[in-house]
């Protein structure tokens, strides 16, 4: 057998894409079937009860709970703003007074003399669903949401964080294998989708957040940097709900790795066009990868639907090694030995020989390579 199937990601210049936009709880749908919607059009809306924030004022002021009503600067039913002083103790001879401020905005709902605890009720939370994908509403799900359809250029990333956003595409790196550094990001990139090349640094993402970029798309990222950005160690690849100020999409993997040339070229071609991106990733049965959707205007539909969802390994097929010790290296299939071989780890597996760009020929398990497009 000189062929083998290996997975890849969807990268298509033009394809029909449908987006299901539904509310978590029943509400009202704001658009009709056949409507044209923009990325930020609100298609459905509802309200939820505000959050309640308890605050133990007695503990904070080191006062007796019974004295709290006298120490309160606000009464029950009053509106409070976050950071606003709401209670102050008497101090010692009028000195050393300490204050306690509201941890959240809302209405002061209750003051307890027994525990010294107060409750602040936040305002009702509007839950809105935006169109996300500009296009046509092709179906209305009553009280739930809509289905939107459009012709798009679709690029799937391997991994992302952050939710849905949109903006025009701008290229920050001049080449697909160049690292995306903080210095390459400028004020003009506000609200834009910044496309880098190889690995993106935490500083670069920090800078992008500073200038208010909508999203960063690049080839790779260091796990340590990801941890720094998220503030925690990501456990399971189920993302999309992070609130980090922008969306980050990685197209290739972790570590120093260049963006696939085809992906880079496609993005470069569509540079300046408005795109919808979603960092949500779910790597499980029913896998969900982050996506970049760039609507193709009616007249532009020229390129046929293409995809590289899975391909066939043959001699000469360009591949990338996706596991150490040769992680990220690119080469072509040099041979596909039939019999399983003993690996360095001691286990047996079917392998292939890769002729690397450097000219070196190495043996790797077939499970550890991925097809790439040139």
């Amino acid at each position, binding site marked *: 057998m000189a062929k083998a199937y290996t997975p890849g990601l969807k990268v298509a210049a033009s394809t029909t894409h449908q987006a299901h936009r539904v509310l978590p709880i029943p509400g009202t749908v704001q658009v009709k079937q056949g409507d044209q919607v923009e990325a930020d059009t609100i298609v459905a809306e509802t309200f939820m009860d505000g959050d*309640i924030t*308890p605050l133990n004022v007695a*503990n904070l002021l080191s006062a007796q709970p019974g004295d709290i009503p006298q120490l309160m600067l606000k009464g029950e039913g009053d509106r409070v703003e976050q950071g606003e002083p709401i209670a102050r103790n008497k101090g010692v001879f009028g000195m050393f007074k300490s204050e306690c401020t509201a941890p959240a905005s809302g209405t002061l709902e*209750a003051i*307890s*003399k*027994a*525990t010294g*605890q107060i*409750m602040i009720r936040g305002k009702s939370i509007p839950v809105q669903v935006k169109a996300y994908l500009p296009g046509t509403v092709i179906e209305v799900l009553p009280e739930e949401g809509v289905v939107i359809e459009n012709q798009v250029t679709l690029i799937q990333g391997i991994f992302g964080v952050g939710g849905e956003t949109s903006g025009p595409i701008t290229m920050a790196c001049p080449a697909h294998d160049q690292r995306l550094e903080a210095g390459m990001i400028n004020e003009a990139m506000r609200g834009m989708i910044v496309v880098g090349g190889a690995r993106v640094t935490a500083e670069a993402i920090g800078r992008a957040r500073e200038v208010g970029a909508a999203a960063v798309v690049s080839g790779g990222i260091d796990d340590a940097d990801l941890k720094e950005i998220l503030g925690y160690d990501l456990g399971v690849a189920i993302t999309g709900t992070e609130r980090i100020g922008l969306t980050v999409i990685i197209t290739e993997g972790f570590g120093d790795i260049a963006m696939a040339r085809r992906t880079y070229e496609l993005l470069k071609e569509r540079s300046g066009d408005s795109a919808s991106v979603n960092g949500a990733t779910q790597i499980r049965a029913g896998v969900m990868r982050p996506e970049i959707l760039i609507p193709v205007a009616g007249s532009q539909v020229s390129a046929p639907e293409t995809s590289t969802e899975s391909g066939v390994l043959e001699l000469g097929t360009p591949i990338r090694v996706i596991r150490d010790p040769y992680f990220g290296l690119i080469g072509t299939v040099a041979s596909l030995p039939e019999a399983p071989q003993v690996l360095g780890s001691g286990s047996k597996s079917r392998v292939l020989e890769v002729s690397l760009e450097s000219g070196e020929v190495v043996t790797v398990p077939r499970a550890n390579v991925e097809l790439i497009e040139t």
Partner: protein
Amino acid sequence: MLQMKKRNTLPALACATFAVLVSLLAASVEAAPPEPPTNLAAIDKPWDGGGVVFVTWDASTTPIDQLQGYEILAKDLGQTPVELADQTAEQADLEAKDQTETILEGEGVAPQEARQRARIAEEADPAVPVVEPTTWQSLGIISATETSYEATGLEKDRQYIFTVRSIGSDKSLSMMTTPTEPVVPEAAWFNLSKLPLLIALCVISFAVLLFVVLARGGMPMNIRTIAGLKAVDEAVGRATEMGRSILYINGIQDMDDLQTVAGVTVLGHVSKTAAEYDAKIEVPTSRSLVMTAARETVQSSYFSAGRPDAYNPDLIYYVTDEQFGFVAYVSGMMTREKPAACFYMGSFFAESLILAETGNSVGAIQIAGTANPSQLPFFVAACDYTLIGEEFFAASAYLSGQPDQLGSLKGQDIGKMLAGLFIIVGVVLATIQAITGSSGLEDAVNYLKEVILGS
């Protein structure tokens, strides 16, 4: 006890004369009585808690080998009528207190009731003021080599005069010395023998303050998990699954009792859990103030659990102040409604076993907490979990999570450790002393026993 009697002066005088004659005769026959000591002086012992006078004198001129020792005598000159009255009242109070304790411990009757019974008993048998002796009384005989004596056991507010006489080796007595000036063995503003207590107090207070400050500064305070507290979820869960109510009894004492206060804190936790599970919690109280406090606590628990709507103040109500009336009501309610979880947190007396047994018979998970030692065995036997004494207060601190409470708990632990240390040292020393019979150790043991333990 000798009493001066004025009526038969003549025969008495005759007798006295006779006696003197006889004694003179005897002295001339055998040997002369020893000389009395001289320069007698008495001073109130400084830096003490009162009741001690220091008596000093110069040795008798009689050679030491002819002396058996000195006898010290004291005469009580009495006190002012006001003081007398005060003391009588104090005495009566003490007795009443003793009696109250007896009723309290022996019969498990609540303190109010016990006090009332004691008062009735006292009225029926009023305390009679004791008439004090006013003649010379011997305080003791000491060796002839000593020239000072510490008179102890005197009354703090009375005046005393002292005298000393020598006792010859043939038991003959010398003349008494001229009595001293009256001395009042009053209490100094600081009792030096209580110094160890002061030090311990300072150490513990400092530890408490230190830990409070540390706790406020955010140092994590670890409290051992208390099975009874962990079981709150289980008990409330049981009530929820069985669709029955939770019964919470906050003791039968008023808010001035620390246990009631701790019970209210625990109630906050239980009712918050109940609010989260949306279970019904019923709190009958035997004091109106406790009812108010309980309502406030439960309400705020429901608020912080985010279920203010589920709070029903009618389930927290006052029953009666009467100890057994309250118990009768609660037991009746338990048999009728069969709560799935019962909590007894506070000060309990004779009702403890009645309540716990009733709860057990209706199949409830029961969690008790009390610091009344006499009721603990009953709770342990009849309940699923019991917070024992200190645990109960620790639970309160743990639940409230207040740095002040946690810190003071930790600080008190230092005190307990100190006490434990002294006990161990004392036991070891006493054991070694008993084996070796060393007198140096004996002093140390006595010091520990009398001064440290005594203070």
